[in-house]
């Protein structure tokens, strides 16, 4: 009998071999509240949030406002004490679906040291797929793809302890890619990286997003959210601001400062150029777009 791959149309094969991620998942919170058992105070106080498949959300807020807790709800690491959470329409409180939910939604945490389990690069990357109970040749394929995509394939047999901080965080990302989730939650995943590693990490996230993956990114730096579609600000367990990232970035510098954020230079530049009537107001705060608009002038 012919193998399954021979029966598929060519384009199907192509898209299979080229997409690390399956298409994006939808994440949905309805009236979600959360309280840690040993803590009197509610950490989340009625959150309504719908994230469409393939959307890129920037999640901002002061320390202790409940951002990490919110991400853990999406991954079924925590269950809402009130309200509910749906991933692709599946309620996270269905015990039998937990494995499925975690294969759809992956988290990358702040410190790579806390999420790498094995001592050898390829063994750590295999950890997720091994837990999913895939066939070992399938695991090998996924590990190879994931390590190639983060640029660590040459180091597959190396000890984790021999990697740099940036490489370790990319390894954490590879471990998540190998699960092929439909959405990626980043909990301050770039905060410990130097500028060069930060850029290469962000480039990897952009690529995943362009292949359809849903992104929820927790950060304190506005220069990291320029590619996001929507910004959600959480203060004290509630959504205090929500809207297009472009609109968030056009909030005045002083007001952003009061909220604890520094306006990124590229947003300042765009505003100045718009104010002087050089480029149209609809331009996004993106250096590539500004350059394009400026080139049109000549």
């Amino acid at each position, binding site marked *: 009998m012919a193998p399954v791959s021979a029966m598929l149309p060519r384009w199907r094969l192509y898209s299979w071999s080229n997409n690390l991620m399956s298409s994006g998942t939808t994440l949905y919170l309805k009236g979600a509240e959360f309280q840690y058992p040993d803590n009197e105070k509610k950490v989340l106080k009625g959150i309504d949030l719908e994230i469409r498949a393939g959307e890129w959300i920037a999640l901002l807020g002061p320390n202790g406002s409940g951002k990490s807790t919110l991400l853990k709800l999406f991954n079924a690491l925590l269950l809402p004490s009130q309200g509910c959470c749906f991933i692709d329409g599946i309620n996270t409180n269905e015990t039998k679906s937990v494995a499925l939910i*975690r294969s759809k939604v992956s*988290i990358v945490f702040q410190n790579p*040291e806390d999420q790498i389990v094995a001592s050898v690069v390829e063994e750590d990357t295999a950890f*997720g797929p091994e*837990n999913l*109970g895939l066939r*070992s040749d399938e695991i090998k394929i996924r590990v190879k793809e994931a390590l190639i995509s983060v640029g660590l394939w040459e180091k597959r047999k190396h000890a984790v*302890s021999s990697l740099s901080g940036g490489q370790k965080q990319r390894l954490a990302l590879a471990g998540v890619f190998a699960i092929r989730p439909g959405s990626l939650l980043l909990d301050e995943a770039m905060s410990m990286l130097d500028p060069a590693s930060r850029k290469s990490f962000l480039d990897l996230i952009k690529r995943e997003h362009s292949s359809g993956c849903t992104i929820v990114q927790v950060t304190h730096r506005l220069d990291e959210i320029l590619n996001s579609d929507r910004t959600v600000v959480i203060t004290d367990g509630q959504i205090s601001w929500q809207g297009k990232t472009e609109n968030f970035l056009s909030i005045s510098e002083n007001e952003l400062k009061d909220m604890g954020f520094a306006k990124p230079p590229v947003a300042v530049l765009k505003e100045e150029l718009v104010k002087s009537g050089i480029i149209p107001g609809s331009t996004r705060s993106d250096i590539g777009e500004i350059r394009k608009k400026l080139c049109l002038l000549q």
Partner: protein
Amino acid sequence: MSLIKGVTLGQYIPADSFIHKLDPRCKLLITVLSMILIFISGSFPAMAMWASLIIFTAKRSQIPAKALIKSAKPILVLIIFTSLLNIFFTGGSNIIFSIGPLKASVEGTVTALRMGLRLYLLVLFTALLTFTTSPSELSDGLEAAFGPLTRFGFPAHEVAMMMTIALRFIPTLFEETERIINAQVSRGADFVSGGLIKRAKAYIPVLIPLFVLVFKRADTLASAMEARCYRGGKGRVRMYPLTWGSAENKALTAFVVFSAAVISLNRCM
């Protein structure tokens, strides 16, 4: 070969050999068998045979002689101590020399030599195992070997996973300890002067942050493992499953034949 250069895990010496490729269960079995056999066949010719087997295996798996000899260093004190005990306390009529009431006899010296060599051979056998088997293979092998005991409640998978995590975090914890010590030193802590108690006390401000850190780490790691779909050993499939094939059968047969020869040699002596 440059590919595996970065690996510095325990005693493991990576190489591309027939012995490195053997299933860890096979190597574990042979090691355990050899330990028992060395104990029941302790004549000098038999031990010479065992030694030749060790040398042959080390040669075939490209283990440098220096590494092999050095592997017994941690228990050298034990070997010397038991040898001394044997020399002086075995008793016997042919006294070579005496220090006060202690008499060294010929019989005692022979026993000491025999016991010392035996211990040394045992250490070399286990060293060969750890030289040719990576820690993760070793924990896979142990998990499989203890697998049947899970029926009686022995947590084989959990123990293997603990080994994996411990190995992973040893280098990290060393780094963290160093960082904390440096931070304390830069704030004027003194770890070198004073008596033993004073110096031990100086380490308390290092241990407390280290403990706090370890517990926080463990908590996040547990979440991260769960987030990566970990549900214990159930339904877990390894990327490199253990495979017992003809190579393992051959190795085991060769070992059994060799052992039988050694045992009969030992009987004849």
